[in-house]
């Protein structure tokens, strides 16, 4: 880094530090407790940014591995290695925070749920990359083979993100895209109307209103009319309070989202799947945290790349 950029870099470091400090304070003080999750929900402020950065680091490593194979510049290898190391660190953070949340809310540390499976694979890929690097003595050969492996492993990424999660309809993560056939907005039904939420069939039998509380009688069944049950989700129109009963033999819940003259809007949700759109403070803090963690990532990434370059120089001089 040139002398001229040094003050800007120092300022950026202080900005990231201050920013993360504010994010941590906001995460515990400013953000309201989650509906149904309490204080446990605050962990998503760390979980989501670290999970996103672990995938992002994987992409950076693949990009600089490709660049290394094209340009044969050892600095590209430094960047790929720095990104992999940070990706490994961030995926451990994402896994640990996710597991803590899963234990409290879903009942066990590990559920073999699609996203858990794919981050486990990511961890294994990172581990294999380091194992490969440590098993090759010759520096030039090490760089080249590590780049090949990073790119080869990256070729499975589309399969991990799109194919495998779609094969399994049991995801606990709040992402409507992973529930086949369901829409983020749920479905609107009139009396006796039939619809599908995920792979469940739902039929609205009737709607009862007493005071501000609306109760829907909904007949639900699984594939092939299995487990036919009547669930009664309720919504308090004045306070927005909901009762969300669980579908039989599953952790998914049925929520009555709104009532109007078009009918009632029903939706399927996983435990912990609280909508963030409704809460400006949560959204702001999450975005700020994402930005802060990304800044932190690039700070350490730059530091590590510089250190790796210096180490190469020292090694070269030692040989000379």
């Amino acid at each position: 880094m040139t002398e001229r950029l040094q003050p800007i870099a120092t300022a950026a470091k202080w900005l990231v530090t201050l920013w993360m400090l504010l994010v941590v304070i906001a995460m515990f003080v400013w953000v309201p407790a989650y509906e149904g999750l309490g204080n446990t929900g605050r962990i998503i402020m760390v979980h989501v940014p670290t999970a996103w950065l672990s995938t992002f680091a994987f992409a950076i490593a693949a990009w600089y591995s490709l660049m290394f194979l094209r340009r044969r510049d050892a600095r590209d290898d430094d960047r790929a290695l720095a990104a992999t190391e940070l990706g490994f660190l961030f995926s451990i953070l994402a896994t640990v925070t996710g597991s803590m949340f899963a234990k409290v809310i879903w009942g066990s540390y590990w559920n073999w749920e699609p996203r858990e499976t794919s981050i486990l694979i990511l961890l294994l890929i990172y581990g294999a990359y380091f194992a490969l690097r440590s098993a090759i003595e010759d520096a030039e050969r090490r760089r080249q083979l590590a780049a090949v492996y990073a790119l080869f492993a990256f070729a499975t990424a589309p399969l991990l993100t799109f194919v495998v999660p779609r094969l399994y309809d049991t995801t606990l993560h709040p992402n409507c895209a992973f529930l086949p056939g369901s829409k983020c907005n749920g479905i609107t039904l009139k009396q006796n109307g039939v619809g599908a939420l995920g792979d469940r069939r739902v039929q609205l039998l009737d709607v009862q209103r007493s005071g501000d509380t609306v109760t829907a009688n909904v007949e639900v069944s699984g594939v092939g009319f299995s487990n036919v049950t009547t669930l009664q989700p309720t919504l308090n129109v004045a306070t927005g309070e909901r009762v969300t009963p669980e579908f039989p033999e599953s952790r998914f819940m049925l929520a009555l989202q709104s009532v109007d003259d078009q009918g009632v809007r029903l939706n399927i949700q996983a435990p912990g799947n609280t909508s963030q759109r409704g809460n400006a403070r949560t959204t702001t803090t999450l975005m700020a945290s994402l930005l802060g963690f990304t800044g932190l990532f690039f700070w350490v990434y730059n530091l590590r790349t510089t250190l790796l370059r210096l180490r190469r120089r020292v090694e070269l001089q030692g040989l000379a």
Partner: protein
Amino acid sequence: MAEEIKRPVRSVQMNERSAGSFRRAAWAVFRKDVRSELRTRYALNALAVFALTVVLVVSFYLGPRLSPRDPVTPATNATLLWIALFFSALTGLGRAFIQEEEAQTATFLRLNAPPLAVFVGKWLLNMLLLAGLSIVVTVLLSLFMNVRIANLAMFALTLALGSLGLSTTITLIAAIIAKASARSALFAVLAFPVVFPMLVIAITATEQALTGALWSAALPQIQGLGAYAVAMTAAAIFLFPYVWEV
């Protein structure tokens, strides 16, 4: 002027000649490997003994306990099949490139055949061995675990697509580890994360074939296996020359 007209014609001839010589080179590598395999029978022994051991160990304890009507039985058998295939492949198929490095014939091969021809030749042998292994494991499973295959065509297609992806991945990883130390330990470490997504899909598809699921139900899995084989083959063709040249 005459030069300019001649040049494309000559280059076409060159391309035809190099395509022919590529095929010949790949075939020569394949034949050389088959011959050396038949002499030592290293991979054949490793594959057969490993597959037999896995099936026997599991069937000894689980065989009498698993009833064909138990809904868990097809899942167990599908998992067992792919465990046997994957780990036998790891034991037997890594030899392809290690042997060249150990006998110090890699340089000679590098001088005499284009990189992709070497890859295709080695890949063909691995594919052949995996196809044989799939048949052997299937027969062993039906003998010892009483496996019934409800949809034989789907079962065969799953095995074929799975072996295709597996042999491509294993061949490339074998080429990488041949250049490293601590090879046998490294092979599983490098191969497992890359193969795992395919194993998950293949086990699901195999279970569906064993229980006799409809083609429409198994289509996403079949597509997934096809996509994996295509992605891995494309990546391997692009990456192999970089492994071979160092």
